[in-house]
Structures are given as C-alpha cells and as structure tokens.
C-alpha cells in the first residue's frame, strides 16, 4: 500500500514538472520561436504523462493524453501546420491536461462535458488539418531567433549617443501614504535607471530639526534628471502607481546640462542612510549627489528584472535530487534545535564571564556562524521558485477570460524568485482568487476597452521580487481601476462605514478587503462565490504577510502581497509580561514608548488612552488581557509597545520590560495542543524555556476581552 502510494505521489510530482516544461515550451512557441525541438519536447512530455498515467489506471488522463499526442505527432511529422489557431488549441489542451492531472491527484471526477469538448476539438484538428501544409512549416532560418536577445540590452548602453534622447527633470516628493502603501522610492528610481542614464539629487531642505524629528512625515525628496530615448509616457509610467501619493512634476529639458548639482552641506550626515545607495565606489558614498549613471546592463537591476531573465534558456538544466519532504522537515527541526543549543551554550559561556579567554570566545563565535550557515543552507533547500505557481495563474487567466468573455494576457516577471515551499503552497488559493478577481472585476469588456481607447485585450502583470527579507508579489491589471463611488456606496449600504464618512482614496480602496464586501452587483460564475477579498487578506495574514491595493481610475489596479521569506523563523521582540517572557513579532511593532505622565488619559473606570502626536490610541494592559498576574515592578514609568492591528488600528500594549530583538524559531502549538487565542505560536528561548509568540491582532480584538469569562464557562461545561 505504502509503496503504491509513494509511486503514485512520485508520478504526480513528475507530472507537475512535465506540465511546467509544457508551459515553458508553449510560451516559447507563442513568442514566435519555431524549433522542431520544442514540438518534440512537448510531444515527449505528453507521452511521458500518458505512459505513467497508464501505470496507475488513470483512464481519463490516458485517453485524453493519447488523443493529444496524436495531434502533436501530426505536427511533429509536418502533417499538420502549427498555425496560431492550432497553438491555441495545444495550449488549451495542456490546460486541460493539468485539470485532469489535478483531478486524478485528488481523486476527484472531472466534468465529462468539458473533457468531451476538449477531445472533440483535438479530433477536429486531425480531420480537418491533415491535408494542410504538406511542406515544412518550420523554416530553419527562424531558429536563429532562439538566442537573439542577448545583444539587445546593449542598445541602451549609451543614452546620450542617441539622437532621439530626451532629457527630463523630475521632482519627486513622496507623501506618507506612498510608504504606507509599500512603495519604495529606491525602486522607482531604479526603474527609471532602466530607461536611460539618470542623475539623482537628494533634496534635504525639508529635513526636520534633529531634536524633535516628526518621524511620520517623510523628509526626503528627489530631483532626478534622466536622459532617455524611451519618451515621456515611459517615464510617466514609472510613477503610474504612486500618482496621488507624492508630489511629482516631470518637465522636459531642451538644452542638456550634464553638470552635477552642487554638493549639499548635509551630505556627510545623511548619505549613509540613503536607502537606495547601490554605490559601487565607497568614496562616492560621501557625495550627496547620487550619480546613478550606470548603463542599464551594469546597473544593479531590480530583483524582478534580474529574476525575469530567462535563466533556463541556453543553459543545461542543473542536476536535481528528489527528497522526501519528511526528511527535510526532520533536518529542519534538527537545525532549529542546533540554533537553540548554540544560543544556550553562548549564554552559558557568557554567564561564566571568562575573561581574556580569546580561544573560547572565538570558538563560540565560529560555532554561532556555522550554525547560521547551516540554517541558511537548510532553508535554501525549502525555497522554491514561484514559477510553477505563476504558470498555474496563466491558466487561471485564460479560464477566467473565457468565462467572462474578455480578452486577457498575462505577463509574468520574476518567476525565478524563491520562497519557502509552504508559503508557495499556501499562496496558491489567495493568488488564484486575486488573479480571477483581476480578470473578472479589474479588466473591462473588449467593447468598453475599445471605447476607452485601449487594446481590447487586457493585460495582467504578475511579478515576484525579493525586497529586504520579504517577498513582494504584485498583481496588476490595466483595467478601469476601482470605482470608488460605487465601493463607498456598497460599503455604506452594507453598514461597513457610517454614512457621510470622509474617507481618503486609499481608505476607500481598502474597503474591498472588509468581510462581507462584494463588489459584483450580479454574482458572476467566477469570483462571486461568496468569498471576497477578505478571505485573501486573512490567508495572507495567516502567512505573516500583508496585502495592499493601489488603484488609478481608467489605468488599472495593483494588488501587492508582502510575505516573509520563510515561516520557520521570525524576527521578534522579547518582552516580559507579568513575569513571563513573550515574543512580539517585529512586523507588528511600530515603536516602543515611555509616555510622559500627561500623555496617558483615563477613560471610564478602567480604560486608558495614550496621546501620541495628536492622536489617541487605546492602552491595553497585556498582563490583564492574557489573564496573567500583574508583575511587581519597581519601575513606575509605563512601557508601551505601539502595534498596528487590523481589528482596532493602532493600539498601545502595556508591557513590563522589553529585553531585545532576536530571530526565533517558530514552533507550532497546533501539533500537540491546539490553537490558543491571542497566541500565534511558540519558540524555545536560550535557557530552554518556551516563550509564546503573541498575536497582537487576536489580543486587541474586542472578542478577546470577554475571554476570561468564556474560559471559566468552558471549564464549568467540562466538569
């Protein structure tokens, strides 16, 4: 039994790989490449699937694969011309093959009528197409195209040499909302740098007085001079999704002026903090005038661009090893133990206070480094490219477009970006939903698009990129954008916001994530399944991520999912609550404050508010909320953690002590116990004791306040 099962699993894993190869091959054919080898490769993949499926008596899969193979064989032997129409049929057949494989894997049946239709289409090809194209449809000359894009990039090399180059001066001052929405000036500037040569001046004139910095208001602004042959629209496009979130002016220059701007007096103090300094020469870092004049191929490309480079083309596939996930899991746990053990030993050695024993200290330090190396290496094993996931999305786009009578194409960027396997798996459902949503609600119908002067076929961009310890996935469409008026009206009619509420555009956009919000007035077959974007948000949050939206009327909508690289470790802040050590995820903490006595106001008998920068936020006594006895403390000053929560916005958590920040290995509570409200997981500290990882959202939720009572009732019910 077990042997049969493991063979079966192996088959499905292989089938998944083969389907990935198929998708790659078809993408190459669609991009205009004509190579017999591609057709052969498709044929072989389908044949392999058919052969293995036969061994497991997967009847539907075998019969469909067989018919598909017959058509491919006809193409292979030049009996059938590979017309765009036929290519589309091949593509749809691969989609159907994936559907059948998935159904077989989950032991589900499939819709017989779709299968019959798919078979009928293939049959029609064979009957109608045998006499077409007796000559070779794959001219050898076209093979040259295969490796033709390497020199292309060099064309950008020297923007100034181009007669058509234009120079623009861009003044760019981000508003706080720009950062709130997860945009990053450095990336925008890096995107600009891809268009041509740029020079960037950091304007520090609005830098606040250092003694009382208001950290909410961004102080930096930039003057960027770009020389590019790409034209004004391309430059504007870079800023497309931050429009309204910043002050922006783009003016064309007529007389090129290559002189760098004068040095700024604040240069030395600030340049080290400039977030986007990919400065190759350390000496240059002392100059405030950031000269980002690298030519595009040399410039540090944004991760998305680097990853989108077709790494597989032209290079031999790397040898791989298939390993049972259980074994990796075991290795992973052992490494987690190793890390804990290492920090225990380090702590003990520290406690001994050995002085001048440099040997010991050096050994402990190299042990630490080795342990981290091993941990990183093991995590890399679990990392998987998002490519298979993205390929599945292209199928979703085709299905969704077909289902809604729209035309849509998908452009994928950064498919080679790697994320933890678990994250990839758990991202599949929310991403499917969002991509469907983009086609269904984001894109307009072909007629409407034509009226708006757009290409009748809409485009969905799906991109993944690493960004400082997290993975950012964006789903962008070039549709009509959110109808804010309608969104607000729906939200009011459903009682989600009070009537006459004055909401900013970004706030209105975010309403669509609220539970119980559904935009489609008529429930469509695709997205209107009773689940809304709130499910997506919950799923992403369960992965420790965030999801955001930006929308521009008439131009499109962009969803951003920001995820941690791994679910195995977490950056946390070690705190004490009523004598118990706990971890608060750094991602939730905005700041720690010791408020002045006048900043805390009493409301009612036992509620307190903290006044911070003109706002009032509720103070929640963590010890009380968790039902722990209050700690005796000789420190009368309050220590507050400002956290951002979904349920109640910004809240201040009253804690007893903040120890330090550290990376902790996440241990689930579910395996041996179950979910505990207000606690997301646990970790083992250096002394071997367990510390709980708090879920600030769960704790501040109003339902949590009555928890003590509920707990008491449950005990009563048990006895």
């Amino acid at each position, binding site marked *: 039994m077990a042997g049969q099962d493991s063979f079966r699993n192996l088959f499905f894993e292989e089938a998944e790989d083969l389907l990935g190869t198929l998708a790659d091959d078809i993408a190459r054919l669609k991009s205009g490449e004509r190579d017999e080898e591609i057709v052969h490769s498709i044929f072989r993949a389908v044949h392999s699937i058919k052969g293995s499926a036969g061994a497991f008596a997967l009847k539907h899969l075998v019969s469909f694969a067989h018919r598909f193979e017959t058509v491919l064989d006809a193409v292979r032997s030049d009996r059938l011309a590979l017309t765009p129409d036929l290519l589309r049929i091949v593509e749809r057949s691969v989609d159907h093959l994936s559907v059948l494989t998935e159904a077989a894997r989950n032991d589900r049946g499939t819709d017989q009528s779709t299968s019959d239709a798919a078979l009928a289409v293939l049959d029609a090809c064979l009957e109608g197409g045998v006499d077409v194209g007796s000559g070779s449809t794959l001219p050898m000359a076209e093979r040259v195209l295969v490796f033709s894009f390497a020199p292309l990039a060099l064309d950008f090399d020297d923007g100034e040499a181009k007669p058509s180059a234009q120079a623009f001066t861009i003044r760019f001052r981000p508003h706080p909302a720009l950062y709130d929405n997860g945009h990053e000036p450095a990336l925008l500037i890096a995107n600009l740098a891809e268009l041509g040569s740029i020079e960037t001046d950091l304007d520090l004139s609005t830098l606040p007085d250092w003694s009382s910095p208001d950290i909410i208001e961004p102080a930096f602004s930039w003057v960027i001079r770009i020389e590019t042959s790409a034209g004004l629209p391309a430059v504007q496009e870079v800023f497309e999704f931050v429009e309204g979130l910043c002050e922006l002016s783009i003016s064309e220059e007529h007389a090129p002026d290559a002189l760098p701007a004068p040095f700024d007096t604040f240069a030395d103090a600030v340049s080290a903090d400039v977030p986007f300094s990919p400065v190759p020469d350390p000496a240059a870092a002392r100059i405030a005038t950031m000269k980002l004049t690298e030519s595009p191929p040399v410039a540090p490309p944004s991760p998305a661009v680097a990853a989108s480079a077709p790494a597989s083309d032209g290079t031999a596939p790397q040898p791989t090893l298939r390993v049972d996930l259980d074994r990796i899991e075991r290795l992973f*746990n052992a490494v*987690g*133990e190793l890390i*804990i053990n290492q920090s225990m030993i380090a702590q003990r050695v520290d406690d001994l206070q050995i002085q001048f024993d440099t040997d010991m200290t050096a050994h402990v330090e190299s042990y630490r480094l080795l342990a981290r190396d091993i941990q990183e290496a093991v995590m890399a094993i679990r990392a998987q490219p998002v490519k298979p996931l993205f390929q599945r999305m292209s199928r979703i786009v085709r299905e969704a477009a077909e289902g809604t009578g729209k035309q849509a194409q998908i452009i994928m960027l950064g498919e080679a970006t790697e994320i933890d396997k678990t994250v990839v798996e758990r991202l599949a459902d929310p991403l499917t939903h969002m991509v469907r949503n983009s086609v269904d609600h984001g894109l307009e119908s072909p007629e409407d698009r034509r009226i708006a002067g757009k290409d009748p076929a809409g485009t969905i961009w799906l991109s993944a990129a690493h960004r400082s310890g997290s993975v950012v996935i964006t789903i962008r469409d070039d549709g009509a954008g959110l109808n804010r008026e309608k969104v607000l009206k729906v939200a009011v009619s459903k009682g989600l916001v009070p009537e006459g509420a004055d909401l900013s555009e970004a706030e209105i956009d975010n309403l669509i994530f609220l539970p119980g919000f559904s935009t489609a007035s008529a429930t469509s077959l695709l997205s209107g399944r009773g689940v809304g974007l709130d499910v997506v948000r919950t799923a992403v949050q369960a992965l420790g991520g965030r999801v955001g939206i930006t929308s521009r009327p008439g131009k499109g909508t962009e969803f951003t999912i920001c995820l941690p690289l791994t679910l195995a470790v977490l950056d946390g802040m070690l705190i004490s609550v009523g004598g*118990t050590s706990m971890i608060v995820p750094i991602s939730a903490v905005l700041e720690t404050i010791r408020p002045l006595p006048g900043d805390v106001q009493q409301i009612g008998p036992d509620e307190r508010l903290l006044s911070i920068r003109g706002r009032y936020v509720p103070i929640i006594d963590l010890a009380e*909320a*968790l*039902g*722990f006895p209050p700690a005796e403390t000789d420190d009368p000053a309050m220590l507050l953690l400002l956290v951002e929560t979904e349920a109640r916005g910004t809240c201040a958590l009253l804690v007893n002590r903040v120890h330090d920040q550290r990376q902790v290995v996440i*241990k*689930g*509570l579910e*395996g*041996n*116990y*179950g*979910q*505990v*409200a*207000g*606690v997301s997981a*646990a970790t*083992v500290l250096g*002394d*071997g*004791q*367990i*510390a*709980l990882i708090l879920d600030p959202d769960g704790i501040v939720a109003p339902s949590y306040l009555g*928890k*003590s009572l*509920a*707990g008491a009732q*449950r*005990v009563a019910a*048990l*006895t």
Partner: protein
Amino acid sequence: MQDPATSLGEIELVVFCSGGQSFSLDIRYVREIRGQSAITQLPHAPEEVLGVMNLRGAVIPVFDLSSCFGLGPTAADPRNVIMIAMNGARMIGLLVQAVSEIVSIQHSSIQDAPAMLGGPAQSHISGLIPLADGMSRVIDLPALIQRRLPVPA
C-alpha cells in the same frame, strides 16, 4: 499499530498517584517520565492545563491529572513528575504525584467501571483493576486528551 486500549491478552500498566488516588495507564502510551520542568503558562487556559513545556524542541501541553478528575490542583512538590504520553501523533505531559509501580495483568481482569460514576470520572476511566493495596483507575487517554483540547474558534 494496534490501538493499545483494544488489544487483548496481557497488558502492562504504569500505576501512579494523583490527587491522593491511584491511577494507571497502559504503558504503551507512556514515552518517558521526567522530573519537574519549566512550564510556560498559556493565556486563559482552563485550570487543568498547566501550560506548555519544551521536550527536546517540541512544544507539548502539560495537564494536571488531579484537576482533570476534579480533585483540585496538584500541590507543588519536588517529587511530582511529568509523564510524557503519546496518543496518535499528539504528545502530552501529565503532572502526577510519584509513579509507584508497573503491573502486568490479563486484559480480562480489567473490570468495567460501574455506571454509578458520574462527571469526568465516567468519561475518562476505561476500567478498574484490583491491586494488593486497593484499586487503581485505568485512564482512557484518548478521551481524556480529547476533552482537554481547545475548542477551535
């Protein structure tokens, strides 16, 4: 593997004391017996859930057996031990007062608990065994654990 509770023939039971009463547990559930370990309290847990402890990197819940049977919390004592038990894939700890012996008896000599028992005793005890110095209650571990797990929200 067969479910320990249903197999016939001779079985071995770990006999221990909790809340002043004698209990016993099929030895095939028992993984190890540990002295007192550092236990981290869980927020709003029922009285019988003492918290979680670290067992070689695994986070396992610890229950106070005495509280589970409504006999009040076990008094702190350095001689208290935590019995690590495994039920399926789930590992738990049971805080008990001293383990006394391991007995080997015929499965058939386990008597059904009389129907007069009510409350937690009724649902957590699968039978009774006579011992030289009285009687021991055989714990139905799956039932005991099932009732102690948090209710999913």
